[in-house]
Every structure is written in structure tokens, then in C-alpha cells.
């Protein structure tokens, strides 16, 4: 049992360290949010000005913006480690690698949650979407989506952080993997905002949850191999 407590303490210490760095890091996190908002703005130019067309596209655009911002976020969380050679030190501590993964994934999920949560009102305003009672399933989608994205992102960011062409490799590897996540999240958003005639929202939420569980398990199991050099 103390193994678990120790692992938990390690994970929390890592998540806390990352969160502190994020909050203090010269608005790097804020820049990502701003970037995602600009992307949404640009979508408006690309697909507008017909308000109805934008409203229909809104769920998809929201999640695309979250994905793009998310890629930057996950990359940055590992960049923190690479800056001063901290990653090598991290890999050498006598701790369970799964705990390291858990800590970084936790920090990643939290960052994604903030990103998603803040983008929803931006979308609501830009594309004139009334949120109303939709907020609960929307929240569920954002939470589950954040966890899933962070689960994959932590593993892949750890994998690419020391690679050549890492800036393109992370998106290249991640995007096909998170395609079903994107699909499901958008579906939940659509049914939350526009009604659910087929009653499919539950199924999509389950898909999201399943994705999260699988990716967390695999990520935790393989992260140790990625830390080695």
C-alpha cells in the first residue's frame, strides 16, 4: 500500500511542479489560449459570414481549436523538462515511471481542461450558440476529451521531445490517434446543443471514456521505455 502512496506523492509532486511552472511561465500558457482563440476567429473568416453555417460548424470548430491548442500545450509540458536537461535527472530518480507519467498526464489534463473550458464561451460568443442546459454534457465532453488527449499527448510528447523535427512529429503522430476522440467529442457537443434524436450521446460518452482508459493504461505502461536513452 505504501508503494501506491509513494507513487501518488510522486505524481502529485510532478503535477504541482508543472502547474507552478505553467502559471509562472511568462504567460506561455496564456499565449496558447490566445492562439486557439485566434484560430476560432480565423475559422469565422474562413467559413462565415453566414451565421447559420457557423452555428452548425461550431462544435467541430471548437474541438479543432482545442486540438491545435492542445498540441502546443502537450509539447510545452515536456519542453519544460528538456530546457536545462531536467528530463535526464527526472529519468534517474528512484521512482516508478508510471508515477511520473501519471503526474505529467495529470498536469496535461488540467491544462487541457482550462483550455477547453475557456474556449467554450469564446465559441458561444463568436458563433452565437446559446449554451443553456447544454453545459453538463459539454462539461463531460471537455473533461473526458482533456483526459484522453493528455493521456496520448504525454506519451507522445515524451517520445518526441528529444527527436529531430519534433515540432512536426508530435502533431503527425497524435492527430490520427485522436481522430476518434475528436469525432466523439464533437458528437456529444452537437447532441448537447441541438438535441439528441437518436439518443446517441450516451454511446459517444462511453467511447470517450473507453478511449481514456485504454490510453491511460498503455501510456503508463510504456512511458518508462520512452524515458530511456
Amino acid at each position, binding site marked *: 500500500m505504501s508503494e501506491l502512496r*509513494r507513487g501518488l*506523492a*510522486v505524481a502529485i*509532486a510532478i503535477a504541482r*511542479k508543472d502547474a*507552478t*511552472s505553467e502559471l*509562472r*511561465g511568462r504567460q506561455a500558457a496564456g499565449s496558447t489560449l490566445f492562439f486557439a482563440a485566434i484560430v476560432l476567429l480565423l475559422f469565422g473568416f474562413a467559413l462565415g459570414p453566414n451565421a447559420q453555417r457557423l452555428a452548425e460548424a461550431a462544435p467541430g470548430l471548437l474541438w479543432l481549436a482545442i486540438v491545435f491548442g492542445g498540441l502546443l500545450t502537450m509539447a510545452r509540458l515536456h519542453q*519544460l523538462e528538456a*530546457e*536545462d*536537461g*531536467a*528530463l*535526464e*535527472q*527526472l*529519468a*534517474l*530518480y*528512484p*521512482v516508478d515511471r508510471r508515477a511520473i507519467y501519471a503526474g505529467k498526464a495529470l498536469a496535461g489534463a488540467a491544462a487541457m481542461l482550462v483550455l477547453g473550458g475557456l474556449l467554450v464561451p469564446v465559441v458561444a460568443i463568436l458563433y452565437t450558440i446559446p449554451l443553456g442546459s447544454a453545459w453538463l454534457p459539454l462539461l463531460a465532453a471537455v473533461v473526458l476529451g482533456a483526459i484522453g488527449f493528455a493521456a496520448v499527448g504525454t506519451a507522445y510528447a515524451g517520445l518526441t521531445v528529444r527527436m529531430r523535427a519534433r515540432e512536426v512529429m508530435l502533431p503527425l503522430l497524435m492527430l490520427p490517434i485522436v481522430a476518434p476522440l475528436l469525432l466523439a467529442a464533437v458528437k456529444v457537443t452537437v447532441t448537447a446543443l441541438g438535441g439528441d434524436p437518436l439518443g446517441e450521446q450516451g454511446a459517444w460518452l462511453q467511447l470517450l471514456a473507453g478511449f481514456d482508459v485504454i490510453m491511460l493504461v498503455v501510456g503508463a505502461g510504456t512511458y518508462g521505455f520512452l524515458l*530511456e*536513452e
Partner: protein
Amino acid sequence: MPQTTIYVAPRLAGTLGTIPPAVATVELARLFGRSAALAGVSLTIEIGRTVGLVGPNGAGKTTLLRLCATAIRPSYGSLAIDGIDAQEHPELIRGRAVYLSHATGHYDDLTALENLRFAATMFGWGEREGDPVVREALETVGLAFVAGARVRTFSAGMRKRLALARVLVARPSLLLLDEPHAALDSDGMALVDRLIGLWHEAGVTVLVASHQADRVASMADATVRLEGGLVAEVSGAGVSQGPVGATARPRVAVVGMDR
């Protein structure tokens, strides 16, 4: 002189109750891409010795240290730390072997205190018991006055001192110091010398890679000179070259190659 407590890992008993050597390598080799950073090193280092590792740039000093730290895996040959095989159980070596690298490995946006507290947690200290350890370490390296400052504001010398503090928070049986004197002023270098002396007294095996051969030689039990990825010369007590029965050709030890 501030009080400095040295924490040491418990001794491991080897087979038959003998104490295994701190470092035992057989034809240890490591390639990066196609260049051989280490081309077959066979060394046995007794426990508790302070050993200087000298040689020109590119001789393989850093590579040897990193292999001992399990930061990298051998390409060929074998390596055992305190009798533990580095390929089979690297996780048991981590924490016993502590590595002070060229890059100081700090988190720039965290304060010195936060960095050390994090390290303390990683090295297994609980929150409460680790606090005095961390504070003492900061005192020892002379950074207590900037404990609350972010590492981003630190000079290279201060970063090095903080890295030394991190080593003080660990509980090693083997210390791998890569150019510990680099970036330090004369006070800093004296601090390093003093700490090495304390570690030696406490029975920790210390491997110091340095360009300052003379400085190291005066403190060390033995000196190993590396050149071109091989051992050129061994002098002093406690280090022998090659265990009994070493062959001159590298053993083919890459798993999976049919010959």
C-alpha cells in the same frame, strides 16, 4: 562552516557475504550512431574509493559516468553497480548512483527551494522530514539567501551550487560527478573539494571526471586516464583494470544478432 549531513545508501551484501565492487565493467562499449564513445572499458572500482577520471575531450569520461548512472544503456559489454547488473535491474541502481551532469537540470520557473523540495520528494523524503534536509543543503552550498528566488535569475555558478545541493539531498552509494568544478569561482571549487572529502569520509564511492587532473589527483585514491574511448592508464589504489579473464576483443553481447 555550516553543518553538513551526508546521507548514504545502505550497503548491499554481495554473494557469499562479500562486498561487491562499486563499479565493475567488462568490455563496456557504447556507440552513438556509428562513433564509438567508449570502445571497451574493463574496470573494477572498490567501494568507498574516490577516483579521478581524466582525459582529453571526447575520451569517453561523460559516457562512462552516464552509463554508470543508467542514464544510457551499454551497446556492448556488461556493467554492474554495487553488484547489480545495469541491464537487468537499472531501477535498483537509480537512487544509489547519483549523477551530477554538465547540464544542471533545474526548473527555471521554480525557486531554488521548490527545486530542491521536488528533488527531495523524488529521492524519497517525506514532506516534513525532507524540509530540514533541504534547508541544510541550501546552507551548505551557500544559497540560503536566494532560496526563494527563481532559478531563471541564477548565474551559472549558482546553478552549479544548486545542483550540488540536490546531490546532498540524495542518499547515494555511488556519486558520478561530471566536471563538478566547472562554472564555479574559487570559493565554489573549495566547496566541491570539501564535499568530496566529506563523501569520501562517509564511505561513498566518488567518480570525478575533470579536466583539472592535478586538483583531482590530490584528493583521489586513484586516477583513471581515458583516451579514445579506452582506458589508457590506471594509477593508485582501489581501481584495477579488467576483471580476471577479460578478453581483448569486445564480447558480442547485442541480443538478437545471429552469428
